[in-house]
C-alpha cells in the first residue's frame, strides 16, 4: 500500500463520513424532539435532485445547496404534518416518505439524467494548510459541505445541550407533557426539529450531486440514508459519538472497493453490511446495559402527543 493510497483512503473516509454525518445529525435532531423519521433516504433523494436541477438552471452551487436544504426541509415538514398535526404513526409516515422521495426525485430528475453538472461545490483551498502532507488533502482539501457538517455538529451540540431552546427540544422528546406543562409548544418544537432534520438530509443529498459525483441518476442515494438512521442509534443520540460513528461507517464505505486495490481479498458485499452489523451490535449492548440504567434513546420517541390524551 502506497502513501498516496492511504491518504486517499483517509480522504474518502472523511468525505463519506461527512455525508453520513449531515444526514444522521438531522435525524438525531428530529429524534431528540421525539419524532422518528425513517424518510431520510427520501429526503436525501429530494435534496440530491433539487440541488442538481437548480445548479443546472442557475449555475450557482450555493443557490443549489440552499434549494436542496429547502426541499429536504419541505419533505421533513410533510412528515411533521402527518405525525405531529395529524398524529399519524411515525414509522408508516417515514417509510411512505422514503418511497415518495425516491419516486418524486426520479420524476423531477427525468430531464437531468446523464447531463453534465451545471455547477459544483469544489474543494476549499485553505492556502498553505491544503499543501501540508497528509493533513492537507485529508482535512483541508474537502468539499465545503464537510466543513458545514463539522459546524452543524458543534451547533447542534451547543443548541441542544447549552440553551433553553435545546432543553425544550429534549423535553419534547423525553416527556412531551412535561414540556407542554412548562409552557412550550410541543407541536411547534417537533415541527421545527423535523424541518431542521429534513434540511440537513437535503444538504447531504446535495453533497452527493454537487460535490461527490456531480451528476443525477435515479437511486443515487443508494441506501446511504438508511446508514444514517442506523448511525443515530450507533451514536446513542450524541453528536460526538455520532461523529465517531460517521467516520467509522465512512471508513467502511471507503474501504468497500479500496480493499481490492490494497491487495486484500475480502468480499465488498460483506463490507457493505458492516455498518448495519455494528449497529445491531450497539443495539445489543444498549439493551443489556439498559437493565440497570436508562436507555439513551429519547423516552417519548415515536409517540404522538395530544394534550388531552396524557
Amino acid at each position, binding site marked *: 500500500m*502506497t502513501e*498516496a*493510497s492511504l*491518504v*486517499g*483512503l483517509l480522504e*474518502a473516509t472523511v468525505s463519506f463520513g461527512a455525508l453520513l454525518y449531515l444526514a444522521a445529525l438531522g435525524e438525531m435532531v428530529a429524534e431528540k424532539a421525539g419524532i422518528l423519521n425513517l424518510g431520510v433516504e427520501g429526503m436525501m433523494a429530494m435534496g440530491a435532485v433539487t440541488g442538481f436541477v437548480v445548479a443546472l438552471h442557475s449555475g450557482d452551487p450555493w443557490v443549489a445547496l440552499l434549494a436542496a436544504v429547502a426541499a429536504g426541509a419541505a419533505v421533513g415538514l410533510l412528515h411533521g404534518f402527518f405525525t405531529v398535526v395529524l398524529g399519524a404513526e411515525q414509522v408508516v409516515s417515514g417509510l411512505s416518505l422514503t*418511497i*415518495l422521495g*425516491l*419516486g*418524486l426525485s*426520479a*420524476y423531477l430528475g*427525468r*430531464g*437531468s*439524467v*446523464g*447531463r*453534465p453538472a451545471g455547477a459544483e461545490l469544489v474543494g476549499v483551498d485553505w492556502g498553505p494548510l491544503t499543501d501540508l502532507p497528509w493533513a492537507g488533502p485529508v482535512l483541508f482539501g474537502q468539499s465545503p459541505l464537510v466543513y458545514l457538517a463539522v459546524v452543524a455538529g458543534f451547533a447542534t451540540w451547543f443548541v441542544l445541550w447549552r440553551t433553553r431552546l435545546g432543553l425544550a427540544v429534549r423535553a419534547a422528546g423525553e416527556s412531551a407533557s412535561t414540556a407542554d406543562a412548562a409552557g412550550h409548544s410541543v407541536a411547534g418544537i417537533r415541527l421545527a426539529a423535523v424541518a431542521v432534520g429534513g434540511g440537513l438530509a437535503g444538504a447531504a443529498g446535495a453533497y*452527493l450531486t454537487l460535490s*461527490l*459525483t*456531480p*451528476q443525477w*441518476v*435515479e*437511486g*443515487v442515494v*443508494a441506501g*446511504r440514508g438508511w446508514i444514517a438512521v442506523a448511525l443515530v442509534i450507533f451514536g446513542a443520540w450524541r453528536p460526538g459519538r455520532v461523529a465517531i460513528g460517521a467516520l467509522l461507517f465512512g471508513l467502511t*464505505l*471507503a474501504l*468497500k*472497493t*479500496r480493499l*481490492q*486495490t490494497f491487495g486484500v*481479498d475480502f468480499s*465488498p*458485499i460483506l463490507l*457493505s453490511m458492516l455498518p448495519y452489523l455494528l449497529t445491531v451490535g450497539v443495539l445489543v449492548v444498549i439493551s443489556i446495559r439498559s437493565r440497570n440504567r436508562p436507555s439513551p434513546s429519547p423516552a417519548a420517541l415515536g409517540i404522538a402527543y395530544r394534550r388531552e390524551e396524557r
Partner: protein
Amino acid sequence: MRRRIAGLLAVVLSLTLVAAACGSDEEDATKAAFIFVGPVGDAGWTYAHDQGRQAAAAETGVETAFVEAVPEGTADFGNHVRDFIDQGFNVIFGTSFGYMDDMEALAGEFPDVVFDHISGYKANGTNFGNTFGRMYEPRYLSGMVAGSATSSNLIGYVAAFPIPEVIRGINAFTLGAQEINPDVQVEVVWTSTWFDPVVEGDSAQAMLDKGADVIAMHQDSTAAGEKAEAAGARWVAYNSDMSAHAPAAHLTAPVWDWGPRYVEVIEQAMAGTYEGGYFWGSMADGTVDLAPIAADVDASVVAAVAERKQQIIDGSFHPFQGPINAQDGSVLVAAGETMADGDMLGIGVFVEGVIGSAG
C-alpha cells in the same frame, strides 16, 4: 415508486393506445415494443438502446413504444409485455440479461409474437432469439489507445461483476494495451453494482491514488470519467460517446449501435422470416464500434488502431489469437490458435498482465 410510476404510465399509455386502436383497423401492422432495464437518459446502456429504437422506427416506419426502468426478476416485466401484446405489439425487445427466462416463457405462450432478447444465451429456434455483440473487438482497440496514453503503465479498470462478458472485455482491453505498450498492467476494481455513481467514482479514485493515469470501465454511469478528469488523468468510456462528461480525459469508448440489428429483427418479423436464433453482432455489421479517438492521441496509434479495426472486420486478425497466457502464466490460447466462441462466452480467467481476482 418508480415501478408504480412506470405501471401508471403503462396504464395511461395502454388506454390512449386502445383509444387510438379503436379508431383504426390496421390489425396486422407490425409494432415493436422495448422493455428497458434503466432510464433512457442514463447516457449509457439504455440510452444506446433507445437511440437504436429511434433509428429503427425512422428506418422501418413501424410504430414503436418503450417502458424504462423495469426491474429484473419481478412480475413487472411480464405485465408490461402482456400490456403491449394486448395493444397489438408483435415484436418485443428486452434489453437486460435478467429478462431471459421470462421472455422464454412468454415466447411459448405467445407463439405469434417475436421476442428478441439482448445479452442472454437462450433461444428457441422459432419466435425467441438472442442478440448480443462482440464488444471485445472495440474493447481491444480501446485498449490500444489506453496503452499509448499511460506513462505510469498502470491502468485502472472499474468493473461491475466478474461475469464472462466483463472478464472478456477486460482481457481484450489488456491485450490491446499490451500490443502498444508491453509493460502495461491493468488493475481491476469490482464495484458489485452496474449503476452507483458514488461507488464507481470512488473506485476510480482509489486507482488514481494508486498511480493509475488511465481509467477504463465496464459500468453504466460517467462517474469514473469525472474523477479521471478532476485528477488530470485519461478515461476510456463505454456504451456511448461520453466525451461531453469529461472532455479533457476522454480518450475513446467502445460503443453499441443497436439500430441496424433492430431494423433487421423488425424486417424479419414483418416478412415472417424471424428464426429465433443467436445473433452475435460485430464491428463488421456495425453493432459495435469505437467512438472517435481524442485529437491528442499520436497519429501512429490512430493509424495502428484503424489497421487493426480493418483486420478484425476482414477476419485476418482476432483479439483472442494465440499465443495468450492466463494470469497465472499457464497457456490460455496456444500459438496459431484462436479462442472459440464457446470458450469466449464462458471465459472465467484473466490474461497475463491483469491484476485482480476474476472470481
